[in-house]
């Protein structure tokens, strides 16, 4: 037998290696397939209604004609206000949990609570938002109440992503700073945060997608089926793309088939657009990554 001739064991391993390679590759392909099908269907069926008028005019004739501008604007407003509330709060909480909190039962309980918060169904968040923001704080059904509900719902995403990225910064960096006489905050501000920014942005990307798409939490707290005017401030109600999609798909008789597809396409494109901004920012920052 020559030196490099495969033994039976070699052949078995090589065979297995091939099987698993194609199996795992196939699984990945199956994941991409639905995404491609969804996008293709939406573009194919939604394209007929796509126009600048569709994006920038009010709906007319019982929403079967005209555009979706109030809903588009409403979703953008909801996402922005929700981010303004949840990002500072979530990042601050994550910094405390990662950099300051002592490792004791109380901290562990808080961490557990955050994980559980992520598991609460969105309809429960909706009812909480109704009770807390609409009724107790008397914000009424408004953009503010709806955004705060969305913010609470997505807080765990921000906290967990931020905490993970803070903890990915090597401990040796902190110790070097502390040894120089830096306070904890100086260390966080100058070394830890700048190196965790890309990870934090990943959390924000995830949050944007989820915030823009959610329907249940805003139904009772600020989003309405139809408004003849645009919201003037955060205490007004608003239309939103996600709810609008639900309405035009199920609630309006004699709806032209292309409209729901058009709404869905706009919603997806909006999320992709918002994501691509933060992805671009992330790539720029990662280019400057320091270790």
């Amino acid at each position, binding site marked *: 037998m020559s030196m490099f001739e495969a033994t039976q064991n070699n052949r078995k391993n090589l065979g297995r290696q091939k099987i698993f390679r194609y199996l795992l590759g196939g699984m990945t392909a199956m994941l991409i397939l639905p995404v491609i099908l969804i996008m293709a269907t939406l573009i194919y069926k939604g394209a007929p209604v796509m126009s600048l008028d569709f994006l920038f005019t009010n709906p007319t004739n019982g929403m079967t004609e005209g555009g979706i501008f109030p809903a588009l604007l409403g979703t953008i407003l909801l996402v922005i206000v929700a981010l303004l509330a949840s990002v500072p709060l979530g990042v601050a909480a994550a910094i405390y949990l990662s950099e300051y909190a*002592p*490792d004791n039962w109380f901290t562990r309980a808080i961490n557990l609570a955050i994980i559980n918060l992520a598991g609460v169904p969105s309809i429960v968040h909706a009812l909480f938002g109704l009770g807390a923001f609409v009724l107790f704080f008397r914000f009424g059904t408004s953009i503010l109440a709806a955004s705060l509900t969305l913010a609470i719902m997505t807080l765990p995403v921000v906290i967990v992503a931020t905490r993970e990225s803070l903890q990915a910064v090597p401990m*040796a*960096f902190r*110790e*070097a*700073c*502390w*040894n*120089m*006489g*830096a*306070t904890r905050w*100086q260390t966080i501000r*100058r*070394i830890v945060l*700048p*190196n965790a920014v890309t990870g934090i942005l990943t959390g924000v990307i995830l949050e944007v997608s989820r915030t823009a798409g959610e329907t249940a939490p805003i139904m009772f707290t600020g989003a309405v089926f139809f408004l003849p005017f645009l919201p003037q401030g955060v205490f007004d109600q608003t239309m939103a793309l996600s709810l609008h999609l639900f309405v035009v798909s199920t609630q309006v008789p004699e709806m032209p088939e292309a409209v729901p597809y058009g709404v869905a396409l706009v919603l997806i494109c909006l999320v992709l657009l918002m994501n691509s901004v933060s992805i671009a920012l992330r790539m720029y920052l990662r280019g400057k*990554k*320091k*270790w």
Partner: protein
Amino acid sequence: MVRESNSGVVSRAPVKIGVDNLSIYYGSETALEGVSFDIREHEIFGIIGPANAGKTSFLKAINRMDMFNSNMRVEGNISFSGHDIRKVRNVYGLRRRIGVVFPLPVGLPLSVYDNVALAPRLTGLKDKAELNVIVERCLTRAALWDEVKDRLNSLGSMLSGGQQQRLTIARALSQEPELLMLDEFSIAVDPVTTMRIEDVLKELKSEMTIILVTNLVQQARRLADRTAFFLEGKCLDVCITEDLFTGEVSDQRTRDYVEGRFG
């Protein structure tokens, strides 16, 4: 017992670090037990000993790093220029007077310039011209200036291992420390660079006190005025370094360690 030299500056210089019955615990583990000795100004004080002897814990206690580790407990007394470090109200001020160099070079993810300018900036210094002077002086004294002067804006963490270690020394010097503590600094550094750093240390001795933790007995011999031998959390010997090699040490285990007969 501590034995002082009959001649030389070491014994007459004032005490920089006074250690009195120092014990260090991590939870229920004892890292260091009942250590007492004085480190004098402008001496290079070597600490040798195998792993787990408590050498690094000793350095951490001097710098009050126990504040960042709830598991670490320090008993006994350490004085810094006569002040009890447990009673120092501004521990940040204490740490600024102490430069630390770690076994593995920690180039912070900043530019070479910013690495060295960090400590002065932490104290609030913003003046660009002053910072420039400090950065050049510290890099020069750490024998690194010539190699990096054309790329001060490139990343400190991208330098070679030996350069990074000299960068951390420059960073420590930027604090203008009264005490420089080096923890096995040559572990990841080539012999040529090690020699260059050792030359730097000999020069720095005139300006500051140096504690040199090393696992190279010969390095202690080349540099240290006096040397302590730590073993399993106890300090077995403190003596004039040369005495270690002439056999004038009280403890048989010290003699065995120095002569490489340890097992």
